[in-house]
């Protein structure tokens, strides 16, 4: 995209000399400074949009073009309402005007891009003032929150899996103590009833067998390396104990 697409010529109107007469050297310096600023504006990884006092787009950088899906040519001169709800911006600008502050930071909101999708952004609005302190326009800088939100989802998932691991290990510990008592008593009763009631003997052996089964499960719970979930019912998920303990790697 060429400079024209981003509306750079418009800021030339703000180039003024002290007395209205500008020397050639001063003009060259001003142009160099403006070129430098244009370069910063164009290469910024943050989406930047300049608005006039009546909230019309006066400049837009390539990152903002990409984020909104609109070209600079399309947006220049249009109201900000093309890409976001005007009341969202107006609310912040009204606060800036009333309180006389330079900028308001970290306002989470959304752009509506050219494909009709809502793009979550963190918006900063700064007032652009002239030499007398009068507000001549606003600079909107927007950070795309989609990647951050995706990372937050991954982080939440990691925290959830870590919590599952801790719970599984706690369950293993909490069950093993009472299980120790049940197994011990069952085995004592087996020894003491060795030659007596065969029905009682069979029942005690059944209890002992089931205790060993629980023991096998708690042992696996205590050895969880990386929790793996599987479908249960009604969209609920359950821990796949076998798959979770398959790896020897430790979960840290």
């Amino acid at each position: 995209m060429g400079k024209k697409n981003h509306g750079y010529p418009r800021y030339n109107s703000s180039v003024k000399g002290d007395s209205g007469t500008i020397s050639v050297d001063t003009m060259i310096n001003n142009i160099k400074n403006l070129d430098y600023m244009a370069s910063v504006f164009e290469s910024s990884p943050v989406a930047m949009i300049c608005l006039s006092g009546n909230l019309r787009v006066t400049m837009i950088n390539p990152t903002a073009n990409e984020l909104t899906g609109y070209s600079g040519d399309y947006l220049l001169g249009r109201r900000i309402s093309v890409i976001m709800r005007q009341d969202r911006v107006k609310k912040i600008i009204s606060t800036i005007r009333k309180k006389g502050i330079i900028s308001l930071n970290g306002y989470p909101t959304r752009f509506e891009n050219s494909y009709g999708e809502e793009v979550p952004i963190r918006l900063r609005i700064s007032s652009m003032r002239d030499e007398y302190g009068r507000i001549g326009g606003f600079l909107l800088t927007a950070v795309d929150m989609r990647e951050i939100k995706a990372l937050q989802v991954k982080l939440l998932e990691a925290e959830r899996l870590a919590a599952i691991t801790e719970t599984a290990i706690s369950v293993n510990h909490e069950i093993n103590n009472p299980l120790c008592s049940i197994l011990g008593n069952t085995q004592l009763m087996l020894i003491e009833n060795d030659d007596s009631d065969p029905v009682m003997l069979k029942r005690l052996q059944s209890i002992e067998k089931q205790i060993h089964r629980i023991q096998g499960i708690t042992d696996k719970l205590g050895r969880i390396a990386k929790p793996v979930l599987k479908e249960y019912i009604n969209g609920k998920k359950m821990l796949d104990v076998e798959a979770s303990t398959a790896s020897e790697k430790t979960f840290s």
Partner: protein
Amino acid sequence: MKGRKILIVEDDEDIVETLKYSLELRGFEVDVVYDGLHALRKARKDHFDLMLLDIMLPGKNGYEVSRVLRDEMDEGKIKPFKILVLTARRVNSAEREDFLATWSKADEYMYKPFELEDLIERINFHLGEKESRLSKV
């Protein structure tokens, strides 16, 4: 086994009752304390041949109790005895488990729930006894 003294250090009364009954049935003299600090006092005051030591104890945990007592045995402050740790705690890292076992200087670790037969066998092993009255389950 007659005359052999065992100190059970365990805060779960049901487990204590089962262990005490099983050991007394085999002729051991059994004493019981329910927390780590009492275990230290008891072991310094009376002599035992073997200590059955839980890990998750009130007062002082089993790892610390074992290490303190082993150091005192090495310094000749108390008469040596065997320490057999019984734990329901399994950490999910073999390296960490090995580290804690080494650090505590206990003679052996057994994980709950354990077979009574296995416990008796290990006690006899540490006390230099070959005999076991129970058959393998």
